[in-house]
Structure formats: C-alpha cells, structure tokens
C-alpha cells in the first residue's frame, strides 16, 4: 500500500509539474537552446566532413601568403606581392570611402528631396515625386550599369576631355577635382572641418540658450562663430597645399584628385538610389508632425520656411532617425554591388581571394564579420543621435 501511494504521489507531482506554466516557460527555453545547438553542430560537422573529403582543413594562415594580383585603385599602399590580408584591407578602404561619401551625400540629397515634396513650387514638387517614383522601382544593379555605361561611359575620351572652369576635368576614365597636397593633409582637412562643425553647433546652442534665458546677449557667441568660420576658411585655403588638375598634351590629366569612373559611377548610383528611400522617410517624418504644430507656428507669425526649420523638422527627426539607420546600413551592404562595374571594394577583392586560394568558407567568414562590424558602428552612431533628439521628459 505504502509503495503504491508514493507511486501515486509521484504521478501526481508529475501532473502538477506538467500543468505548471513556470515549468513550461523554462522547458521551452531549454528546448530552443537544444535545437539551436543541434543545428549549429550539424552545420559545422557537415562543413568539416565536406572539407575533409576534399582533403582540406579550416584555417586562416593563407591570409599571409602573397596575393599576386593587382588592384586598380587604393587608399593605402599596395603592391601585388603583398599578402592577402593587405589586399583585403585595400578593398575595405575602398568600401569605406564609398560608404562615408555615400552617407554624407545621401543625407543631403535625400533630405532635400523629402522636403521638396512639401514645396509650394509646382515643378519642384513634381520633380521630387518623379525622382522618388522612378528610382525606387528600378533595381540597384541596373542603375549601377546605367550610371557606368550610359552616363559616365558617354563622356569623351581623354584626348577630348571636358573641362569645367579649368577646375574640374571629366573624361571616360574618371573625374579629376582639386584636392589637398597629400593624403595626410586631406585627412587633416576633413578632421578640422568636422571639429569646426561640432564647435559651431555648440556655440549656436549656447547662444540660443542665453537668448532664451536672458532675452538679450549672444553677441560674444556670434563673434565667436564668425571667428571660427574665418579661421576654418583660412586653414582650408592656406594650409592644405591644394593641387589642381591640369590637362596633359595628347589627353589625360595630372595633379588634383582622380575619382575613377568606377568610383563615381558607384557613388552616383548608390546615392541616388538610397536618397529616394530617405526622401520618403523624411516625408513620412514631416507628415507625422500634427497639423496643429504648423498652424500654431503660423499663428505666431512665422513664415513657412521658418516653421519647417524651427518647429516641424526638429520634431520630425524623432521619426526620421531610426529608419535612416536602416537606410545607411543598406547603403553599406549595397556597396558590394559595385563589384559588377569593376570597383575594387572589399567584396570584389574577397572574391578574387577565394578564387585564387580555394577557401570560400574562410573568406566569407571574414567578409561577414567585416560587414557586421561596419553596420554595428553605424547603428551605434545613429543610436547616439536618436537619443539626442528624443523628447526630454522631466
């Protein structure tokens, strides 16, 4: 009898356990983890079996072998007998230059196109809608070929190149622009410009705060702003040792900075494509601000340009910034398509690398990690920005 009752109580316990919601909450976590681990083990095992079958093993030591192929353009020094990892760094530097320029230009063009869709100017409004409608509905790869072959491909050959004011030269090899005397000076110039911009924003905020709190003043800050601007201008003009492109007899250009046709075509396609999406994000953000805000601001006597600038746009930023993060990440990942028009970005170099070494798995691991890190950095930055524009509730 005794053993019988204890058995019954065990069954009873099991029953209560199975009916307990807390037990199932834990059990589901364990089961999920188990399945994920099983799947991971299966895929890793499968990879190892397949590699072993071909008599190979997983490893990254090949990255230190000489690459042996040449790369058309590079921001860092590279010779064909440098190791594979250095070739990949060249690809990364090219990708980053596309991403950096792309993000800046996309923000400017996308915001302008988004704001233009609220314009009272009929032509500007229609142009903005046409641009967004047309560009969003054509695949990026097609647009890349369009820019590469149909736009920059129709530029004249170097012998009969176009010159704009003698400052910028265009031919079917690329675009030649004035540029700082050396790479270090160019980086310095960019750094100083960013620093000056940040300082200007701080001075402006300080001045606004002072004027709100005291009703007057801000003259010193204004003088500071002007001084900053003059200093920056003087630095940029005098310290960077500008070189200007000048034509060579028989065609071609020396001096200045050459943006290859592959680079400008890739940049144009990426910027115009991504900006169309950004324009829609900006439009949605502005529309999300209630009409009451417009009306209230107008009733205070603001002109519509000022309403947008001072009242509506700052509020719209809360809605605009999170999806902008996605667009910037899309732009970053889409740079890999520039491979199709011969721009040597990291995917292109990685492709050549795995073809020459026969190590697709390792190369793709490196590639995935690289894109992941780039996207995480962008997200980190955008999250900081997002925090700054949220409503501060006290």
């Amino acid at each position, binding site marked *: 009898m005794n053993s019988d009752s204890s058995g019954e109580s065990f069954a009873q316990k099991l029953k209560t356990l199975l009916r307990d919601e807390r037990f199932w909450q834990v059990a589901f976590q364990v089961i999920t983890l188990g399945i994920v681990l099983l*799947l991971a083990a299966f895929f890793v095992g499968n990879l190892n079996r397949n590699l072993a079958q*071909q008599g190979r093993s997983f490893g990254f030591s090949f990255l230190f072998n000489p690459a042996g192929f040449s790369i*058309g353009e590079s921001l860092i020094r590279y010779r*064909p007998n440098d190791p594979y990892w250095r070739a990949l760094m060249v690809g990364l530097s090219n990708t980053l230059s596309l991403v950096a320029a792309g993000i800046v230009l996309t923000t400017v063009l996308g915001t302008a196109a988004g704001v233009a869709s609220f314009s009272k100017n009929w032509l500007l409004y229609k142009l903005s809608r046409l641009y967004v409608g047309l560009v969003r509905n054509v695949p990026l790869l097609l647009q890349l070929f369009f820019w590469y072959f149909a736009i920059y491909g129709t530029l004249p050959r170097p012998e009969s190149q176009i010159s704009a004011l003698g400052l910028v030269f265009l031919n079917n090899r690329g675009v030649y622009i004035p540029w700082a005397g050396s790479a270090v000076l160019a980086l310095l110039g960019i750094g100083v410009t960013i620093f000056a911009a940040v300082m200007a924003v701080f001075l402006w905020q300080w001045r606004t705060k002072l004027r709100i709190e005291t009703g007057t003043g801000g003259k010193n800050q204004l003088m500071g702003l002007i001084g900053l601007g003059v200093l920056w201008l003087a630095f940029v003009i005098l310290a960077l040792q500008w070189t200007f492109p000048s034509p060579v007899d028989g065609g071609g250009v020396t001096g200045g900075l050459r943006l290859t046709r*592959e680079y400008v075509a890739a940049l144009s396609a990426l910027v115009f494509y991504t900006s169309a999406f950004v324009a829609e994000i900006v439009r949605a953000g502005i529309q999300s601000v209630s009409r009451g805000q417009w009306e209230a601001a107008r009733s205070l006597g603001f002109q519509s340009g000022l309403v947008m600038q001072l009242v509506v746009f700052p509020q719209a930023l809360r809605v605009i910034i999170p999806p902008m993060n996605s667009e910037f990440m899309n732009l970053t990942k889409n740079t890999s398509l520039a491979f*199709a*028009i011969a721009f040597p970005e990291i995917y292109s170099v990685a*492709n*050549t690398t795995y073809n020459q070494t026969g190590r697709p798995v390792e190369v793709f691991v490196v590639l995935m990690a690289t894109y992941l890190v780039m996207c995480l950095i962008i997200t980190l930055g955008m999250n900081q920005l997002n925090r700054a524009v949220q409503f501060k509730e006290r």
Partner: protein
Amino acid sequence: MRKWGILAATLGLALAACGGDTTTGGSAAGSRLDLVKDRGQLICGVDGGIPGFSFVDETGAFSGLDVDVCKAVAAAVLGDAEAVEYRRLDSTERFTALAGGEVDMLSRNTTWTISRDTSVGLEFAPTTFYDGQGMLVRANSGIETLEDFQGRAVCVETGTTTELNLTDQMRQLGVDFEPVVFQDADAAYAAYDEGRCEGMTSDKSQLIARRSTLPNPDEHVLLDVTMSKEPLGPVTVNNDSAWFDVVKWVTFGLMQAEEFGITSANIGDFEASDNPDIARFLGQEGTLGTDMGLPNDFMVQVITQVGNYGEVFDRNLGADSQFNLERGQNALWTDGGLLYSPPFR
C-alpha cells in the same frame, strides 16, 4: 497551441536537415559516376559566352569544343550525347559549384595550375586546348608592346589566372598599369569596346572568338605577345577516382580515335578490325570499358555521336568554323602537336 506549432515546425526542420545529411553522406561515399547513371543525365558546367568553346545560339542550343567534351562524356556514360544539362557558370562561381556538387564536371576554359590541382582541390583531365594569354588592342591605338601600357588601363575578367599572369608580366617589365577587373566577361568586353581600357586581356582563343562579337571586329588586333601557358581542359573534384577516370579516358579517347583515323563517318569500317589495339579501343575485345564502370563499347558511342578530336576541333574552331584557327600545338603528337593519349591497353 501556437507555441507547440512553432516547436513542431522547428523539430521538423531539424529532422529534415538530418535527413539531408544522410543522403549527402551516402552519395559522398559512392562515386559521382553512380549518381550520373542513376540520374540519367550529366550536369556540365560551361561558360556559355565564348563562341567556339561554349555558346548558346538563338534556339537555346549549346555548341562548341567545351560543349562537345560534355557530350562525349554523356555519350560514354549514358549512351546519349544529348543527355546533358548545361549550367552557365562565371569564372568566380565555377569552383564552388563543382566543389558543392552542383555540377558533375566543368568544361569551361579552365587553366590547369598546380595550386588549383592541390590547394583548391580539383582534378584536371587531359588538356583539350593548349592556349596562351594574349592582349587585344585597337588597331589605331599605336600600342605595339606591353611596355606601351605604362599608365594605361587593361580590362580583365576576375577569378581567372589571366589576372595573375598579367600582374606577373607587368611587374617583370616594371610597367605601372591600371587593372579594371570585371566579374562578368560581357561587361568587361563592353567596357573595353567603349574605350574604358586600352587593352583587353584573356586567352588568345577567347579574344579571337570574342572579337567576332564586337561591333567592328576589324578595328581590333591581337598584340604579338604570349604572356603564359594556358592548358585548358575538363575538371572534376578531388578524391573521386572512379569518376575522374571516366572523364580523363573519354577525353583521351577523343584524341586516340583521331590517331587511329576513326571518324563518325567511317567507324562502320572498323567494326571487325583485325588490329587488336582498335578492337580493344572499340570494345570488341577485352574489358576496358566495363572495368571503368562503363559499357564496353563506350568509345563507339562517343565517336558515332560526337566524333573524334579532329572533327570536334574543325567543327567548332578550325576549317569548318568562322574562326579558321590553325591546329598548331593542338595537333596530334604524330603531326608535331602536343596531343598525346596514353595507350588504351
């Protein structure tokens, strides 16, 4: 209930994945030869964009030297030269497609190199076309030697040995040139044609074939330089001797048939040959075919349906084609060329 549904679906997925594991494991243990026989069709990786080697015409039919090698293997294994599914692969996808088992073999202008043979894990069947890397330029460009490429641009297709040879040659000559590397051969030739590059480099045969598709073929000339040796031939994956042997000996068989003078037209005269070598070759004596896992008369199928190497060459690249290439080093060893089949014995 929804939770249970998700769990069941995940479990099903995991089981399906494990199921997939056992089947791939099974076929990995056996040979691809059995797989091709079971399937009743050969899957052959080709380029599809090079006239004379592999090209798709308006009707969607494939033709060319590389294509005929696929047909020969299909005729030998399955008795039907048309039992081939062609996969168009570009130069960057071809090795992964082969290693992943998507195609049974490559017949796609692939250069035999030691690193591909060893570290990339491929197995190279005999060379079906001996080629060399050349350079295509505009006739009026004034470029005569590789040194003239100082500061100029060269279009090249990525994933090729061409890319490496070009770099080596230019490094040796100390010429600072600008490579413009395309993934797609069509884009590379288009960019060359509209003037992005002064030169287009690839295997000479490919340049000659591609020149015929440019708008004004007469405006382009090949420089008188050969940058490398390019032995091109079919490829299979490492560690499958049974399948590799089949591809290897069918390829040799094409050459041996020409050496014996057996063509698709006159094969009937050899049916009761007194020559023991020919009798063995055509499967009337011995077990050369069955030892390999093929029908004993596999070469009869190959020759009647595809022809010997000479016929294949003439039809696609030689006298009977638009290219009219010389046999040159692609002649039989008996005619002073490089083609030599080990004995069928």
